[in-house]
């Protein structure tokens, strides 16, 4: 008797497996935000921070579910969202320029960044040139004379990763000779490498180095943000290196290509309202994770600008 019931239940479960979603007003089911990296990283934190507020400001009550889809340096998550149905229920947080580097270098990827639908920007991070605090180099001028003595070693995760690319551009703009020491496992690992003295200097995202500069383990020599976001550290622009100005890592929200305009507007409005929410701003301040919202049009423009910048430096990126 029980066995027969079990068989029926199994059949029902199978049928449920095959059923598809119903059509209704947006949103009518959970929205997934794909994070193309593992849990605990910078992008992950931003999605989890903003997620609950997105829920609050959407026109209907649904869950916003962060989904970590790790692999292939972020390509796996990107591909998954690129290929998803453009129904607004699958979004991604995108690392720009991270996601565009491999295609620029000529590597095959299964997504096309320019075709994605850009919804908004959550934040951005600038780059800063750092040296260990115990180093004798105190200004960019002293750094230049140090650089003349021999190739500059800088930590990197690997060829084609974000910090690696930023470092190469920096070296090219200043005309320094450099040597990348690849193989570090991430930004924190690289930060430790510079403090430890594996390399004499490094180009790293500001966010991760800030607390070490404050604690006196690192010293900043230059930042790509203007006006400077590091007290006492000159901006690249003020040093005359306008090419480095605006060399950032953007955290953008994107949807698959072909997203209908009304859904795009609904999402854009929800994101912008969420980021304007005073409660979220309070949290952003408390966690030292600033928000820098851009709307859809501005976000798309930022993507185009970054693309042009990196295309200009294409040959530098390919060097050994």
């Amino acid at each position, binding site marked *: 008797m*029980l*066995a027969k019931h*079990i*068989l029926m*239940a*199994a059949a029902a*479960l*199978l049928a449920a*497996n*095959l059923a598809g979603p119903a059509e209704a007003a947006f949103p009518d089911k959970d929205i997934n935000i794909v994070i193309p990296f593992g849990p605990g990283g910078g992008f992950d934190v931003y999605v989890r921070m903003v997620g609950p507020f997105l829920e609050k400001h959407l026109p209907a009550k649904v869950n916003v*579910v962060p989904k970590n889809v790790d692999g292939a340096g972020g390509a796996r998550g990107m591909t998954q969202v690129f290929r998803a149905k453009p129904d607004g229920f699958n979004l991604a947080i995108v690392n720009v320029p991270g996601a565009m580097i491999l295609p620029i270098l000529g590597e095959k990827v299964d997504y096309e960044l320019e075709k994605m639908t850009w919804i908004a920007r959550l934040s951005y991070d600038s780059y800063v040139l750092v040296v260990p605090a115990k180093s004798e180099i105190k200004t960019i001028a002293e750094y230049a004379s140090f650089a003349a003595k021999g190739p500059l070693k800088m930590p990197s995760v690997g060829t084609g990763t974000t910090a690696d690319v930023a470092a190469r551009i920096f070296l090219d703009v200043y005309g320094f000779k450099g040597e990348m020491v690849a193989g570090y496992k991430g930004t924190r690992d690289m930060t430790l490498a510079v403090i430890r003295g594996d390399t004499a200097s490094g180009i790293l995202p500001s966010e991760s180095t800030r607390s070490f500069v404050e604690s006196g383990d690192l010293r900043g020599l230059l930042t790509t943000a203007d006006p400077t976001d590091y007290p006492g550290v000159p901006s690249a622009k003020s040093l005359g290196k306008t090419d480095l100005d605006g060399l950032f890592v953007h955290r953008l929200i994107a949807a698959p290509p072909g997203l209908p305009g009304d859904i795009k507007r609904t999402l854009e409005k929800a994101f912008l309202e969420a980021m304007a929410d005073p409660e979220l701003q309070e949290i952003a301040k408390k966690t030292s994770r600033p928000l820098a919202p851009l709307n859809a049009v501005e976000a798309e423009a930022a993507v185009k600008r970054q693309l042009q910048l990196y295309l200009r430096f294409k040959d530098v990126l390919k060097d050994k």
Partner: protein
Amino acid sequence: MSNNTRNLIVSLIVLALALGYLGWAESYPAERAEVPRLVAWVTLVLSAIDVFAHTRTAAGRRTAELLSGRAHLEAEGDLRITLEEWLAVAWMGASLAAILLGGFLAGIFVYVAGYMTIHGRLSWRLGLYVAAGTVFSCWLVFDELLRTGLYRGFLFGG
């Protein structure tokens, strides 16, 4: 065929694999091949020593004792590959096939029920209960609680 000969054959197969790997590693450009080449050589040398240690020569036996100590001298059970072993391996493969075809929920149900009834020769009722229980727990923990989104299998659009 004695156990020692079987051991020797296995060591030779391993040696051949190491050799093949070395060849493959060499086919990569210089920098990429550096570490694989090193690993290949080390494994090759170790495999060769292992082959040598299983030959009937006195020196071989001395090497075996030196590097592997007393335990090497112990008897090593029957090394023939039996039908039962092939069956067990086949069932493992079957579990994979079931999951690939029908997805986790359907595949696990079929595999568990099938294994218990056919291989284990237990009552089909018990097989169904246990299979249902297993599928239910997996569904509850992974699909509902963890929201994993279990694979649906080739047949159901996976």
